[in-house]
C-alpha cells in the first residue's frame, strides 16, 4: 500500500512537470509579447526619460532635466494637463450618469425593447475618423445640426470647435453620444435584480425615484466602480478626437484642445524630442496609476457588494 502511494505521488509529480511545460508553452506568446512590447519598452522609456534622445544621433544622460523642464518651463505641459483634467472631470461622471439612465430606461417590461437596445448601442460601436468628421459637421456653427436645432428653439448656438470656451464641451457632448457600451454593462446587472424587490417596494408606496435610489443604485455600484476606473484611464488618454478635430493636431483655438497625449505626440513625433516625450509618458503612467489607486481606496465608501451574488 505504502509503496503504491509513493509511486502514485511520483507519477503525479511527473505529470505535474509535464503539465507545467505544456502550460508555459501555451502562455508563452503572452510572456514573449509582454517582454517585447510592454516590459522592454517601459524599461527603455524609464531610462530614456533621463536622456536627451532624439531618435537619430544623441542619447546622453541628463538626469532630471526633462522633468525640470516639464514642471518649470513648459507652459504647454500645464495647459495640456489642465485641458485633460477638465475633460476627465466632466466626461467620466456624465457618461456614467448617461449610461445608467439609458440602462434604467431599457430595463422595463415593454414590447420592442430589443429594437431600442440596438438603437441605443449602435453609436457606441462606431468609432474612428468617420465619427469625428460627422461631429465636425454636426457642430459646424452655421450648417451643423446642433446649432440648427438650437436655432429652432430660439437659442443662438456657440461656435463650438472654433471658440476656445466651447471646444472641450463640444468633445464632451460628442462622447455622450456613445455611452451605449457602458450602458450594456449596467443593463446586464439590472436584469439580474429580482423583480419582487421592485414590486414589494412599489406596494409599500416607494416612488420611482426612491426605488431607483434605494434598490437599483446600491446594486449597480460595483459596475459603476469598474466603469469609473476604466473610463478615467480611457478619458485621460484622449488623443484621436483632438488630433482629427483640430486638423492634424494643431491644438485647437488658443490651445484649448491640447490634451496631454497630444502634447506628448507633438514632442515625440513632430519635434522628435523623444527623451522629453518619454519623460512625459512616465508622468502619465504615474498619474494613471495614482488615479486608479485613489479610485480603489475610495471604493469601500460607496461600493456595495451584495451578499446574494457569488461572483
Amino acid at each position, binding site marked *: 500500500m505504502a509503496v503504491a502511494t509513493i509511486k502514485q505521488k511520483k507519477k503525479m509529480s511527473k505529470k505535474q512537470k509535464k503539465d507545467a511545460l505544456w502550460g508555459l508553452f501555451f502562455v508563452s506568446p503572452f510572456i514573449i509579447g509582454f517582454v517585447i512590447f510592454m516590459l522592454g519598452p517601459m524599461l527603455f522609456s524609464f531610462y530614456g526619460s533621463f536622456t536627451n534622445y532624439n531618435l537619430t544621433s544623441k542619447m546622453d544622460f541628463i538626469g532630471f532635466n526633462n522633468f525640470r523642464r516639464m514642471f518649470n518651463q513648459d507652459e504647454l505641459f500645464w495647459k495640456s494637463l489642465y485641458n485633460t483634467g477638465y475633460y476627465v472631470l466632466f466626461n467620466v461622471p456624465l457618461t456614467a450618469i448617461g449610461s445608467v439612465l439609458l440602462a434604467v430606461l*431599457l430595463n422595463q417590461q415593454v414590447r420592442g425593447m430589443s429594437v431600442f437596445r440596438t438603437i441605443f448601442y449602435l453609436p457606441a460601436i462606431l468609432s474612428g475618423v468617420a465619427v469625428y468628421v460627422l461631429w465636425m459637421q454636426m457642430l459646424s456653427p452655421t450648417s451643423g445640426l446642433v446649432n440648427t436645432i438650437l436655432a429652432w428653439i430660439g437659442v443662438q448656438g456657440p461656435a463650438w470647435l472654433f471658440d476656445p470656451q466651447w471646444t472641450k464641451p463640444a468633445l464632451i457632448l460628442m462622447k455622450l453620444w456613445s455611452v451605449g457600451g457602458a450602458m450594456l454593462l449596467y443593463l446586464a446587472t439590472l436584469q439580474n435584480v429580482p423583480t419582487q424587490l421592485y414590486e414589494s417596494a412599489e406596494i409599500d408606496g416607494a416612488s420611482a425615484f426612491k426605488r431607483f435610489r434605494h434598490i437599483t443604485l446600491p446594486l449597480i455600484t460595483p459596475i459603476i466602480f469598474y466603469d469609473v476606473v476604466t473610463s478615467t484611464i480611457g478619458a485621460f488618454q484622449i488623443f484621436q478626437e483632438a488630433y482629427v478635430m483640430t486638423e492634424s493636431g494643431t491644438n485647437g483655438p488658443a490651445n484649448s484642445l491640447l490634451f496631454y497625449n497630444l502634447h506628448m505626440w507633438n514632442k515625440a513625433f513632430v519635434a522628435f524630442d523623444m527623451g522629453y516625450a518619454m519623460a512625459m509618458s512616465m508622468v502619465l503612467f504615474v498619474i494613471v496609476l495614482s488615479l486608479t489607486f485613489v479610485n480603489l481606496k475610495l471604493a469601500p465608501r460607496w461600493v456595495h457588494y451584495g451578499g446574494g451574488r457569488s461572483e
Partner: protein
Amino acid sequence: MIENVTSEAEEPAKVIPNKQHFKSRKRQQKINRAISYLLLIGVSIVLLAPLFWMVFTSLKPMEEIVRFPPSFFPETLQWSNYAETIEAFPFFKYAGNTLLITFFVVLGNVVSNSFIAYGFAKISFPGKNLLFSLVLATMMIPGFVTMIPQYILFTRVGWVGTYLPLIVPSFFGSAFNIFLMRQFYLSINDELIEAAQIDGANHLFIWSRLMVPLTKPALITIGITSFNGAWNDFLGPLLYIHDEEMYTLQIGLQSFQNQSTTQWNYLMAGATLVMIPTVLLFFFAQKYFIQGMDLTGGTKG
C-alpha cells in the same frame, strides 16, 4: 358600451373599492407605459439623428448645405457625391489596404487569445495565478506609455512604413480577450480533457481539435470585436504608414478631410462609406458585440 355601463352599475357595493384600486393601478400602468415609450422613442431619435443627418447631408448639393437655416431632408438627391468621393478619396484602394491589415489582425487575435487562454484555464502550472494577475494588470497600462519606445523598437528593426507594426503585436494576445476566452473555457467541463488525455491526446491536439470547435461563439466574438478595432484603428496607421499608396480608410478619410475642409457633402459621403461595414456587421452580429462587452463572458452560456 352600454353593456359595460350596466355591468358596472350592477356591481355589488363591497367590491367597488377593490375594483377602483385595480382600475387606477391599471390606468397608472398605462400612463407609465406611455411615458416609457415616449422617453425611449425620444432618446432613439436623438441618438439616430446624427446618422440620418450624415446620410442626408451626403446627398445634398453644397448650396443646400450652406443655406441658412439648413434643410433636414435633402430637396434634391445628388447621388454623384458618392461617385466623386469614391474617386477623390480613393475609397476602394484604401478599403483594400484596410481589409488586408484587418484580416491578419483578426487572425492573430483569434488564434493567439484562444491559445493563451487555454493555458490559463485548463492547465495547472506553478505561478499561473501570478501570471494571470499580470495579464489583468496590463489592462491598466495606458497605451501611450508604451507607444514611443515601441515606435523606436519598430524603427530599429526597420518596420516603420510597413504594416508589420500594426499586425504582429496582435499575435501575442491581448489582456481583455485572454480574460474573455478564459471565462469561456472555464464553463467547459474538465472531464472532457481528462478523457482525451487517457486516450493519449496531448494538449496541442486537445486545444486544436476539441476546444476550438467548442469555443466557436467566443472566437467569433473576439473576431468581430478585433475586426471593428482594426477597421477603425487610426493611431497605428497614423504613426507607421506615411506612403499615401498604403493608407488605410481612417487616415485616408482624415487626409481627405484636411483637403476638403468644409465640403460637407463629400466628407459625409466618405464618412458614410467608412461606417457602412461596421454598421452592417453590427446588425448581423449584434449578439457577438454584446458578448464582447460582457465581463462574465460565456459563463451564462
